[in-house]
């Protein structure tokens, strides 16, 4: 069995939540393997991260390089190619850094590459069987991966339950001297923080959230009327923002806002994981969708199969009627 490495993303001296999930994925891949964490960056942040990881990884390799103040995937790839032994299996979280890093790293290592892995079914010889999703999560696929020459695997955040058993006093090994000078044809310039927008959906306890099923911009008013009747705010999934029907600040999901409402009405939202990942705090989730097989029904508390353009106005009328009764 090849060595397994987990590349750990970190920020301000703290390892990302995916660190323990990658450890769990590695255990699933090979229950007997000792897994090495790799971190790249600059001191003193890097030392804080490596200290933190000593409780979860038996060994951590750190790469301290002044060029890695902001870890750009092109630079990290060069560093990893220099330190990784042949045939390594590398795990990294499937988010904006992993998506940048994995494909090019697999080419440089001449290793297999499989992305956005949800589950690991097992290893037979050098064939690894994993589970992925396609078509926005409407269907899953088993995928075989020949890892005899190593592999780069991106793992979906949240898919693996973090390991509870932890290693105590893992070793930290400084690999910085093996890396040398790093240069890139892409240079980090800075960050632009998302605009606040007119309504802060993260502060609302009730959200009427719309997706592609709302069909056109003029129909957004249907959701706004319901939200007004309920005293809620309107939020949305990605396609609504892509179509410019609502501001980016209304988007719930990994590339939008993380919300923690009490009640969440998902209207015409299929339920892609990128959207669901933005809904925290276990709200009462109501899904309204005309497709009875929409993935959202797997995670909702209550489901309604109907045309939301007809259903929502009737529900709005009901809410208005009942509220006018109760205030009389």
């Amino acid at each position, binding site marked *: 069995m090849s060595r397994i490495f987990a590349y750990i993303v970190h920020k301000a001296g703290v390892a990302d939540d995916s660190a323990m999930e990658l450890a769990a994925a590695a255990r699933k891949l090979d229950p007997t393997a000792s897994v090495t964490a790799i971190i790249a960056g600059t001191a003193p942040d890097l030392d804080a991260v490596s200290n933190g990881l000593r409780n979860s990884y038996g060994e951590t390799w750190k790469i301290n390089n002044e060029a890695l103040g902001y870890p750009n995937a092109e630079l990290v790839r060069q560093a990893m190619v220099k330190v990784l032994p042949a045939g390594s299996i590398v795990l990294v979280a499937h988010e904006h850094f992993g998506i*940048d890093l994995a494909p090019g790293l697999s080419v440089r290592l001449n290793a297999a590459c499989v992305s956005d892995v949800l589950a690991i079914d097992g290893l037979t010889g050098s064939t690894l069987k994993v589970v992925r999703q396609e*078509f926005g999560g409407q269907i*899953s696929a088993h995928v075989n991966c020949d890892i005899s020459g190593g592999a780069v695997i991106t793992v979906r955040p949240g898919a693996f339950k973090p390991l509870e058993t932890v290693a105590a006093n893992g070793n930290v090994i400084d690999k910085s001297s093996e890396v040398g000078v790093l240069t890139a044809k892409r240079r*980090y310039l800075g960050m632009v923080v998302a605009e606040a927008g007119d309504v802060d959906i993260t502060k609302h306890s009730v959200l009427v959230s719309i997706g592609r099923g709302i069909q056109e911009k003029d129909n957004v008013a249907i959701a706004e009327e319901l939200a007004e009747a309920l005293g809620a705010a309107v939020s949305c999934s990605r396609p609504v923002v892509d179509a410019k029907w609502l501001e980016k600040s209304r988007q719930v999901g990994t590339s939008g806002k993380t919300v923690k409402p*009490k009640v969440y009405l998902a209207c015409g939202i299929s339920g892609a994981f990128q959207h669901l990942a933005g809904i925290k705090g276990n709200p*009462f989730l109501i899904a309204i969708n005309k497709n009875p097989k929409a993935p959202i029904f797997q995670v909702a508390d209550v489901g309604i199969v109907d045309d939301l353009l007809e259903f929502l106005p009737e529900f709005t009328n*009901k809410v208005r009627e009942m509220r006018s009764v109760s205030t009389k």
Partner: protein
Amino acid sequence: MEILVCVRRVPDTSENEIQLNAAGNDIERDDLVYSINEWDNYAVEEALQIVSRIGGTVTVATVGGEDDEEVLRREMAMGATHGVLISDDAFAGSDARGIATILKAFVQKGKYDLILTGVQAEDGGALVGGMLAAMLDYPFASLVNSIEVLDQKALKISREIAGGNKEINEIDLPCVLSIQTGINEPRYVGMRGIRQVASIPIPTLGAPELGLDPQSIGVSAAKIQRVDYFTPAMGKGAEMLQGSREEIVEKLFELVAAKGGLK
């Protein structure tokens, strides 16, 4: 600027419910509506907007079969200058690495300043663009949601990262970028536009024209293979409200009120 956009034709998830077939080994492909992969359409629009600002050409290429010509035609109706179908029986069963190998051979037959792909395909894994860049030794950026041309040598781009924040980078040309949805508003293409480009020839290139070694592509080179499709076991699943719409509305109001949904 000479721009290449790599596109794909995929089942359209806004038009179809993707379901398992009766044999349980593939998706049900009868009656599927196919269209341009959504991310790729944004990439073509972005290329067209760059060219309208600073001049140049847009070439759209796809690795596929005869049926895939329709998406090239569609993107040409949007304004793409050239369409190229890269097609050969030897390509069947290629994994992302194989597709990137084929595209690399195609890129090396031309001269492109900028290569765009969509971030991912509906049935893909967001891999081909990054692999192609590494093979060409070009810089790469994924999840790109804005492009500004600085000069002949570099672009200023932003990438979509967590929480709606943007990471700004400068990237040298030539480069490969994977384009995120929402970067622009792709123009509408009508039947009339497609008819207008119907007679423009679309060249087809195969493995021999591209000088590809059959061992480096297709099923024999693939390290990744999809075994089957399946429908995952449902979680606890939603309690589905049944009855007339009026009854459901009634029931839902009670539930929403009980869960604190009236402010």
